[in-house]
């Protein structure tokens, strides 16, 4: 082998090494980016009275891909059909349109002896709080907090059909939204939480 050929081979070898390191870096960055972008739906039920706990962790990408394939009962192609009887003549789309365009505000406030109900729009979220003290045995009462990003609500009602909820679109919107505690139901013995975040485990 001539000295020139030897030099060329060494140069090619070095370039290949650089290319290999670059490819590895790109692959590693792509993997990190992909892992970071995945969102998880968590459901946690703690039953202190019976000493029981249930944790469900579901990658939203699974829900998003699986849901449109289910065709059973009222669920078809990722949409749930709601009968007119369930809607009870209420034009939900018109109500949501009014809420969307309205500034942050409390829309419904009901205060009774044993119950408080509050429905509001706050920081781009639809917020529902219910406090129920009607059960005399339960001194703490029951607390229900629901926080749904308006984008998710919009996606839910994004289908052209009036009597359908687009669950698949809502899940997609949920994936695009930030980390959020969606539902919290708490009474004397049980605590149920549903939330979305970027962690695959249910530590919160």
């Amino acid at each position, binding site marked *: 082998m001539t000295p020139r050929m030897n030099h060329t081979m060494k140069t090619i070898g070095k370039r290949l090494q650089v290319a290999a390191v670059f490819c590895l870096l790109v692959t590693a960055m792509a993997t990190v980016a992909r892992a970071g972008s995945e969102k998880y739906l968590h459901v946690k039920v703690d039953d202190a009275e*019976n*000493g*029981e*706990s249930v*944790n*469900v962790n*579901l990658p939203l*990408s*699974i829900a998003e891909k699986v849901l449109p394939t289910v065709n059973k009962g009222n669920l078809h192609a990722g949409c749930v059909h709601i009968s007119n009887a369930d809607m009870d003549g209420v034009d939900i789309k018109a109500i949501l349109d009014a809420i969307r365009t309205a500034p942050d505000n409390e829309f419904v406030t009901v205060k009774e002896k044993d119950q408080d109900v509050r429905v509001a729009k706050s920081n781009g979220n639809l917020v529902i709080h219910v406090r129920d003290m009607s059960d005399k045995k339960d001194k703490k009462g029951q607390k229900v907090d629901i926080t749904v990003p308006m984008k998710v609500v919009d996606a839910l009602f994004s289908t052209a059909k009036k009597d359908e909820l687009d669950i698949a679109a809502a899940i997609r919107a949920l994936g695009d939204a930030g980390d959020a505690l969606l539902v919290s139901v708490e009474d004397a013995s049980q605590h149920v939480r549903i939330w979305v975040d970027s962690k*695959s485990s249910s530590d919160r």
Partner: protein
Amino acid sequence: MLLLGKIVLGFAATAAAGVGLLYSDGMIVVDVVEKQPERHHIYVPAPALLVPVGMHFAPKEKLAEASREIRPWLPTIRAAVAQLRECEDITLVEVKNHDEHVRVAKSGGSIVVDVEEEDDTVHVSTPIRAISSVIEQLAAAEPSTQSAP
């Protein structure tokens, strides 16, 4: 002597390739430990490739019935399996109470079910690829036209 060496090498290579092929779909592991009254340990590791092979020996009518039942859910199962393959390791479901601890997880390309009870612990690990090939074999089987009783 050289010829003998080549023959031995050929056999060794074939054996290695055979073992590699046998374990290419991973391992199904069933691990049961009975704690009381006497400690029994049952550990069954089996190549996942044997499951679809074993299905060829299953009674045709049973396969046809399973095929008919699973057919409406094939798109859902296929989508779920494909997504599970892609996603990182995760505990999907975990249930704990005073007596039991049940965990269903995706771990290293397998679906793992762990059950811990007072009397025994059970660990079952099945490669997702094996689940997928079983589903595809059921899908390919001729579905029965009769409904189950």
